[in-house]
């Protein structure tokens, strides 16, 4: 909070430095000046995150995520919540990347049981861990509360269930609740903190909350400054400032 106030008052005093790299012998033509992050008014709304229409998740999954994501990173006095930050949009888009399809994971079998020190040894790629996990979670809730799914429960009950899943205490048929929870939490955090270009972190709200200058990537003038907070607010990959 105090960081934000400070940064706004100092923003006009200090301009972002733009470093022009040295040429490399024999490759001079390949070098061009780095593009500065162009100023734009980032406080202008970027559309309502809730208007996003999912293309990966179905309606049931969307309902689960709408509730779970809000419990994991709620709106509060510390900063924006995951929902208003667009984390749902991030999740839907991220599940459609090669990464979520297991593109850089070794996916061949056999799938043997191993000690936790060897990591996940199952055959589900990330997007399937999330999908199978949601279905299993809702199935579990329905078995305990006929006619209801996770999204129908009150916040306290949802939190208690997520805590139980985090510890692996919920027993699902198709997937470990702990595995599902840890992957979901990682993705929610990724969406909350990654550059807005990926769909979350609208208006760089998460960066403002923690005081991260974002994608400035140029701090030589601040390495040895000790007595005051970094003065400029964040900038994102597209050059917007906040």
């Amino acid at each position, binding site marked *: 909070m105090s960081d934000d106030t400070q940064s706004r008052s100092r923003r006009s005093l200090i301009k972002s430095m733009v470093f022009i790299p040295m040429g490399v012998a024999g490759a001079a033509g390949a070098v061009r000046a780095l593009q500065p992050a162009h100023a734009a008014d980032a406080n202008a709304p970027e559309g309502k995150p809730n208007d996003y229409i999912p293309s990966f998740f179905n309606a049931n999954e969307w309902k689960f995520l709408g509730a779970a994501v809000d419990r994991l990173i709620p709106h509060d006095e510390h900063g924006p919540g995951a929902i208003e930050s667009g984390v749902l949009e991030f999740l839907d888009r991220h599940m459609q990347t090669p990464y979520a399809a297991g593109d850089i994971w*070794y996916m061949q079998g056999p799938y043997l049981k191993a000690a936790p020190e060897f*990591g996940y040894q199952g055959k589900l790629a990330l997007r399937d861990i999330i999908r199978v996990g949601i279905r299993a979670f809702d199935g579990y809730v329905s078995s305990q509360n006929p006619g209801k799914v996770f999204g129908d429960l009150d916040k306290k009950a949802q939190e208690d269930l997520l805590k139980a899943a985090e510890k692996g205490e919920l027993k699902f048929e198709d997937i470990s609740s702990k595995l599902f929870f840890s992957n979901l939490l990682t993705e929610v955090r990724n969406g909350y903190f990654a550059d807005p270009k990926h769909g979350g972190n609208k208006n760089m709200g998460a960066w403002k909350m923690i005081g991260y200058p974002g994608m400035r990537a140029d*701090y030589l003038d601040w390495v040895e400054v000790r007595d005051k907070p970094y003065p400029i607010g964040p900038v994102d990959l597209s050059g917007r400032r906040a």
Partner: protein
Amino acid sequence: MSIVKNKVDAVIVGAGWTGAIMAKELTDAGLSVVILERGPDRDTQPDFAYPRVVDELEGSVHRKYLQSLAKETVTARHSVNDVAVPYRQMGSFKPGTGVGGAGSHWSGAHFRALPEDFTVRSNLEQRYGKKFIPANMTVQDFPVSYDELEPHFEHFEYVCGTSGKAGMLNGQVSEGGNPFEGSRKKEYPLGPNPNYLGAEWFYKAAKEKGYHAFPIPASNASGVYTNPYGCQMGPCNACGFCSDYGCLNYSKASPNICIFPVLKGRKNFEMRTLAQVLKVNLTGDKKKATGVTYLDAQGRETEQPADLVLLCAFSLFNVHMMLVSGIGKPYDPATRTGTVGRNYSYQNLNRVVMFYDQSVHANGFIGIGGGGATFDDLNGNRNDSAKTGYIGGGIIWARQPGAGPVRGIQTEPGVPNWGSAWKKGVKDSFLHSFYYEVQGSCMSYDDAYLDLDPTYKDAFGRPLLRMTFDWHDNEIKASQYLVEKATDMCKVLGPKAMKGDAKKDGSHYNITQYQSTHTCGGAIMGSDPKTSALNRYLQSWDVSNVFAPGANAFPQNNGYNPTGMVGALTYWAATAIRELYLKNPGPLVQA
């Protein structure tokens, strides 16, 4: 049917540091050289260009600049009696791919080994007697000395524009550097980088504890620099995207900016990217290599005949290539015979995090990969193993390669992983915490080794490399000792909270947590062909026209980062090829 290319003098597998150095040295000598690189071509422009390169999701989650484990990985197990399972997701170590290899996404910490790191076994025997070394510990002396490598250490530092401060210059202590280092003939090419808060405080705490802190030698240029090849570097702007990322700024030394620009115009040099080498081809008696077989960018099986084959892949994959090609005899832990795969070692890394209130601006988002401070008071011969109860040594350092929130935010003990309390936790700590790390040596043992997995295959149908490795009591004791020293030191700095992670008694190697990409050994250099795969010139004892430079050659690992040593060893081997081998091709050391 294979495509057969025209024969070249030398074929190099991999375009990282070792491949680039070999290509430079051998084309200088007039040889025709082809590099086969499994990954894509990469250069500062356009691949590492700002701003896209600093996307944390692409760099540190999608691992854009690292190798895809879907194609090649390893399996791992703790002991010979276990069934190994695949390293399915990137965790403990991060091999690179593409032009530059791990040399483009490293941090830049650029150490020389200590003189005593070259003589581990004889040094221990001399200090404590022959019985002191446990029977299962297979440490060996390097078959080369610090003095022999000194000119090569120096040259590699000058190629990289290493920024630091000499501590021992021509036998004289030089104020401000490391008084325990081996003597060097020249000062570093550039002075040290500026200190971020954690590094500045490190000097304060170290002084109070009587340690001799010095700037970490960093191949992150502290000023404008032109290397001996005419390649230019610009001053590091502390962007905070070193580890996992290519440098956007011509500041972090890499094969891409320090060596390849010189090679690109050479008529006797060719780089083929997206060229996946499958095996080294051998003559029927397995005593000579005739070239390599690879899949070209279109997936066509292609043969590249060559007089010399240089294995310049990441250390683990050099060993893999030797095993799948039938070079040398695989190590058998039951009989302790065979050489390829033996003495696999790692690095013993642990961290202590310090948390402060809002008045302390630690600014962890600022980063200079190799910058910071360290000391050698607990490393090398300063460790009295009779007193501390462990063999080896280590360093404590303040190093801040830069952190962003996707890469993870450390929170104070007791902070939950989600919800409002987590939000408060990350908000409190992000700008106001920093860490020191303990980087310990890792000895080699008769039951820590590499071989081929009996079950799992890579995307090309070859057996995966199997890693059998676990922590031994010696390294666990070292971790506890060094973390305790680090914690004592941190207390001087009065944090409101601390978090430390010394290894607990009986704890096992956890491949899911990033520790270090310093995987060492497996095809080690030595003076006895019964206990080493390579001779003192990194030449295969068994196939004399194959050389395998890399950290695979370390008989055990010391407390430092390996890159400085890897570069020096590669220049040493290249010099031997130029001055000895080419005049009289064949074994440079008689078995």
